[in-house]
């Protein structure tokens, strides 16, 4: 086993870590393929596949026609027949034409064939608001996929996790939606090991230890929640911040253990509140830690409206102020 000092690391942004993860797997496994609109010569609209076509050739990093259902449908065919496709949706909000292929095929081929066929594919998709993008581009529609039996849903919030989770997703024998928080793509750099490593799917992370309240977030909302948690130190409110990292299956042990300790919880997500993953987290808390609760669980979420045009996106997105307000409400109940 190598010690940390022997592991060579690079300072990478989240999007560079995604590229690094893809490169690692393309090098290691001949059966890994990357496909999607503009992923080849252009290197992806966010440069997540930059340089990969040059290194691995157009037969493995494929520009496809502009057709999301076609990209996912052919990926399913590739996956059942020996390959591990990594399909890119340019934005998660563009996934809707492919929804049928994912819902009616990718997610249930294993159960329909009693595991005779499996679909080891990854769908990568930038998601989330806050970058002044045009309509549809900012949708956070993760719950459409957590509600889909047979799909795993993964959302990194930092460069280290992005590489490790992506590699784990590509190695997973089942279909994985890999959501990339685009507002965090280039927000900061962190140490990312050069070598291959994985971050286990289905396991969240405790980012800060705290005593008074558990704050639960994922993706873009982790850094927003972190700001709120930091602000509350001045008020002597001690928060335990959890980054779920995987939205299906949830890390119920991490959530339960933390809420049992703090007795309070605030869930933060930018997707609309109704039908959101926050309700599943709430269900875990009810089932696992109900008798430990000292106040009603709070949710800070997007509204039940289409993601607005960018002139109003800062009103829609949860802010540190809305989160601190909810935390204080939980603590002072």
């Amino acid at each position, binding site marked *: 086993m190598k010690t940390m000092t022997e592991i060579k690391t690079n300072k990478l942004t989240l999007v560079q870590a995604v590229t690094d993860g893809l490169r690692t797997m393309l090098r290691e496994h001949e059966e890994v393929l990357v496909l999607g609109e503009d992923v080849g010569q252009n290197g992806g609209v966010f440069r997540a596949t930059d340089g990969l076509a040059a290194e691995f050739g157009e037969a493995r990093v494929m520009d496809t026609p*502009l057709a999301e259902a076609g990209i996912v449908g052919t990926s399913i065919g590739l996956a059942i027949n020996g390959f591990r496709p990594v399909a890119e949706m340019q934005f998660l909000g563009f996934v809707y034409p492919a929804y049928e292929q994912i819902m009616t095929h990718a997610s249930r081929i294993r159960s329909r064939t009693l595991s005779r066929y499996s679909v080891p594919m990854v769908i990568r998709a930038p998601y989330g608001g806050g970058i002044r993008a045009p*309509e549809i581009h900012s949708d956070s529609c993760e719950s459409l996929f957590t509600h889909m039996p047979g799909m795993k849903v993964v959302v990194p919030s930092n460069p280290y996790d992005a590489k490790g989770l992506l590699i784990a997703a590509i190695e997973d024998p089942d279909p994985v939606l890999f959501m990339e928080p685009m507002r965090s793509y280039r927000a900061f750099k962190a140490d990312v090991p050069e070598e291959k490593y994985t971050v286990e799917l289905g396991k969240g992370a405790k980012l800060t230890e705290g005593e008074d309240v558990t704050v639960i977030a994922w993706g873009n909302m982790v850094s927003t929640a972190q700001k709120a948690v930091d602000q509350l130190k001045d008020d002597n409110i001690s928060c335990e911040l959890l980054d779920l990292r995987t939205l299906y299956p949830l890390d119920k042990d991490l959530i339960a253990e933390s809420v049992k300790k703090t007795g309070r919880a605030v869930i933060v997500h930018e997707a609309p509140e109704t039908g959101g993953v926050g309700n599943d987290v709430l269900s875990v808390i009810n089932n696992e830690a109900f008798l430990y609760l000292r106040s009603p669980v709070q949710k800070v979420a997007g509204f*039940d409206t289409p993601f607005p045009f960018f*002139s109003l996106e800062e009103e829609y997105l949860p802010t540190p102020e809305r989160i601190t307000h909810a935390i204080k409400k939980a603590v002072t109940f």
Partner: protein
Amino acid sequence: MENQFPIRQILDGEGNITDNSDELTEDLVKEMYRRMLRARTLDRKSVNLQRQGRIGTYAPFEGQEAAQIGSASAMEDGDWMFPTYRDHAATLTFGHSVTTIMLYWKGRVEGCVPPEGKNIFPPAVPIATQLPHATGAAMAEKRKGSDRVSIAYFGDGATSEGDFHEGLNFASVFKAPVVFFNQNNGYAISVPVEKQMNSKTIAQKAVSYDIEGIRVDGNDVLAVYFETKKAVEKARRGEGPTLIEAVTWRYGAHTTADDPTKYRDQQLSEEKRNQIDPLLRLERYMEKNGFWDEEWKNEVMNVCDREIEQAVEEMEAYPDADINDMFGHVFKEPVWTIEKQRDEYLSFKRGETV
């Protein structure tokens, strides 16, 4: 197959008439030029506004003015237009104000709202999804017994999407009065059309649906105008849909967030200006026929500049976006979840304890 779908042209790049079967008047030529200059001025101004951070990401169309304006000029009040996010020259010609178009790119929902009496659908951001809408709206007009028609705009990449085929197929089955207007500008972001499809033309796809498919020089505003007019009139007579492929070229990027030098030789793009530019060829034609007038052009230019500068002022002086617009238009009748979220949020904004 290419031979079966020759490119129809009236005016070549040098301003020579190559087909004199349609009647050209000085008024028509000047009006088309005026419309194209107005659109180009708007487009260049918008790119500059984006670079200055005064609007958001913008989708330019310079080079495609003839395709958009020639086709839109063939439409009449009461008809339906289903544009993409790039068809500002078409919507401008059909009735949108410059201010409305700029508001859209400023991230304002008001930019989706057409003026009273004009049927302009909000720009389609997903690809090809507007084609079935255009078919449906045309089916509705047919059922109502009117002679109104729909036009749907889309690019070459859109022909790969399922909605393209579904829209054409429904139109064919129901003989809907709709014109499918394709602008084939050679690239879907970075993917050249020969990697987008293996068929040699887009027009030939009409064969599958047993509808008429035609190719037109998309940089020849007169050819586009007359060919679209024929398709529109055919639709009005109840003779069904047409697929028009306008072969054109956009000089610039997919959007201001894109860098075309990564996948395209920009030198070639600049060279094309002199060969095929839609405005330049009209200038050359007018010059050859003795009615080009620099002074007239400057007057037109001044009018365009004034209109656009005024629109910029209006856009920038527009009242702040109203939070209630976000909550207030999700359903016709309010539902409790949204009302509760709105009330709590407004109360939070006012600093009241919720």
